[in-house]
């Protein structure tokens, strides 16, 4: 096919390649190859744009879009006058996240960091050698946090968190309770009202520029919701009076523990609740279970004679006795079913009022013998024995009241003077609201309430209550069990209790001295219940141990509340027995 004779130049149309006569499949193959490339391209773009779009969009956004958390703080707890009992302030916690960088901090930086963290240089190095996320230090003041951030160390970051402070400290520790490091309630009101106190943090998405400044909001903002503030019924002045008097008494009598409860008789508000021993909620290292116990609410004990007025009231109510019915209490002993009840002294015939005034076990047992077990049980049930007081407080107990069908006669007799049943101090204080009011019992509340309580339940008639109040007042007169419980300037009444403790099912020679009383008797406003556990030096009788505490707390409370004195001021007892009154 070679044109041998012509010129060497070729015409376009007669390319030598064409003349090669290549097979047609080669061009088709090329066309297919190119088509295949296009298909791959389209498939790839389909993969990126359609199948992986969300993922890639997100990746892209993450370069400039940031989700920020808007923190919300935990609600404050304040007393009835708005004084703060617990408040959160922001703190910083410094963490270290290893990996992903090879910038080594200079020794100088390390030293600065150690100084700011108040940590030993070597200790810090040891921690930084960790291969996991660790907190270097939690709860640092925000200023320190800012200074650490200014060091711009790689891998070291910080979280914003809150620390709870309790300005009133150990005084209100048991009632207010505390939170843990993650701001969650662990005890007391902090735990009981956790859901209300808790703040819900919000969040927002923003676009940030390369300087880290927020340029604009994108998407929706969820607003943070701060925790609700809780206003307790507690009055911190009254709490202080109760706490300091209790502390004094426990120290004076070298007692093991003690508790004081102060109630407002009109609203059922808990004005003060103090326990000893206590603890400092701001510094909870070396905390023991004994210190943590809120005895007034979570411990039950056999109350003893403080229950006698209820027996007397029931007998009056049932018409079995009158105020001045004579009960023969000689010879100071009474044997029922092989067991003997005895009095501390041998009384002769006493009126019902005197039985209460002098706290005769025999007399009370004889009054109880006039009553049916079922009647007594109904009354005990009505005043809240065997039922938790319903404050919603963690660990509050119901106490023990056995069904009346299983009572033996001796048990009915001992229950009439407060043995064989158990309750907590706050239940006891609440039971006394029947005498402070017109015979009805009201629910208690830990939070401030400006309304009168709902759900009051009539237990005794107003007439019965008036008579019992007179008996309670007689107990603080000469000849009563608690002359030392008198409150200067006010008419006060109450009942002593000196109960043997039960250990391992046996009564032992250890005592719980208590006193529950109300004042001013012309129109009772306040109930104060005092319990001193195992006084060891000198006296152990309720009137001697708990009575003076009652008098001082009650006097202070009435003055704080501005209640007008209802008793003519007797010429002040000149001499050494002048009351060491607190402000």
């Amino acid at each position: 096919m070679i044109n041998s004779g012509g010129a060497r130049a070729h015409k376009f149309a007669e390319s030598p390649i064409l003349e090669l006569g290549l097979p047609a499949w080669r061009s088709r193959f090329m066309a297919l190859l190119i088509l295949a490339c296009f298909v791959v391209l389209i498939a790839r773009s389909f993969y990126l744009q359609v199948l992986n779009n969300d993922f890639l969009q997100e990746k892209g956004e993450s370069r400039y879009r940031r989700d920020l958390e808007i923190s919300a703080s935990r609600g404050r707890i304040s007393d009835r006058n708005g004084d703060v009992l617990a408040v959160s302030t922001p703190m910083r916690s410094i963490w270290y996240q290893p990996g992903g960088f090879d910038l080594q901090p200079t020794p100088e930086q390390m030293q600065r960091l150690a100084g700011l963290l108040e940590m030993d240089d070597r200790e810090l190095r040891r921690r930084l050698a960790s291969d996991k996320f660790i907190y270097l230090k939690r709860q640092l003041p925000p200023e320190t946090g800012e200074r650490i951030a200014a060091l711009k160390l790689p891998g070291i970051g910080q979280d914003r968190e809150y620390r709870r402070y309790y300005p009133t400290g150990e005084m209100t520790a048991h009632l207010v309770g505390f939170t843990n490091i993650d701001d969650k309630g662990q005890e007391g009101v902090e735990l009981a009202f956790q859901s209300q106190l808790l703040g819900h943090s919000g969040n927002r998405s923003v676009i940030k520029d390369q300087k880290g400044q927020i340029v604009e909001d994108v998407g929706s903002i969820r607003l943070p919701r701060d925790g609700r503030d809780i206003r307790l019924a507690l009055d911190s002045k009254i709490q202080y009076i109760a706490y300091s008097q209790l502390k004094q008494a426990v120290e004076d009598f070298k007692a093991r523990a003690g508790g004081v409860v102060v109630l407002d008789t009109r609203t059922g508000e808990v004005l003060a609740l103090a326990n000893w021993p206590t603890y400092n909620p701001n510094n909870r290292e070396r905390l023991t279970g004994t210190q943590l116990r809120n005895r007034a609410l979570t411990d039950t004990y056999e109350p003893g004679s403080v229950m006698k007025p209820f027996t007397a009231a029931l007998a009056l109510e049932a018409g079995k006795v009158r105020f001045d019915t004579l009960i023969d209490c000689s010879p100071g002993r009474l044997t029922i079913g092989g067991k003997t009840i005895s009095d501390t002294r041998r009384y002769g015939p006493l009126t019902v009022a005197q039985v209460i005034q002098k706290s005769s076990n025999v007399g009370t047992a004889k009054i109880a013998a006039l009553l049916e077990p079922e009647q007594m049980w109904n009354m005990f049930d009505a005043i809240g024995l065997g039922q938790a007081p319903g404050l919603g407080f963690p660990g509050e107990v119901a106490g023990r009241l056995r069904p009346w069908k299983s009572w033996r006669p001796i048990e009915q007799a001992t229950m009439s003077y407060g043995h064989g049943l158990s309750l907590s101090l706050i239940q006891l204080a609440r039971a006394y609201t029947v005498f402070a009011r017109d015979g009805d019992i009201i629910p208690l509340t830990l939070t401030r309430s400006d309304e009168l309580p709902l759900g009051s339940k009539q237990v005794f008639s107003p007439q019965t209550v008036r008579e019992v109040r007179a008996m309670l007042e007689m107990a603080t007169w000469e000849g009563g069990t608690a002359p030392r419980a008198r409150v200067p300037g006010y008419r006060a009444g109450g009942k002593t209790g000196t109960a043997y403790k039960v250990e391992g099912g046996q009564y032992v020679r250890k005592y719980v001295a208590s006193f529950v009383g109300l004042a001013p008797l012309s129109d009772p406003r306040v109930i104060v219940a005092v319990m001193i556990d195992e006084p060891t030096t000198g006296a152990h009788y309720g009137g001697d141990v708990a009575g003076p505490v009652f008098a001082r707390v009650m006097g202070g409370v009435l003055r704080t509340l501005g209640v007008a004195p209802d008793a003519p001021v007797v010429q002040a007892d000149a001499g050494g027995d002048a009351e060491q009154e607190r402000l």
Partner: protein
Amino acid sequence: MMRLNVFLLVLILCCALGAVTSQHKARKLFQEMEAEQEHARRLEVEFGQLQLELSTWATSPRIERIAREKLEMRLPEPARIVTVLPAGSGDDQ
């Protein structure tokens, strides 16, 4: 026709520049608002801290100590207390 096109072009440029400036202004204002909100947050934190400080200084034990030791105050004896009742309460004390 040509004139109308030029006019529209100028108009659209103006609008575009206007959009840019207003966006810029919006961001400036937004940042200002951010700063103010941050300020408000910080003030709230400070308020909490001051409240804490206030209640720490005003605890009853401290007040009592100062009243007793520094100011030498004490409770008067019952005989020296005169009760003044509101008029019409019918009490003769």
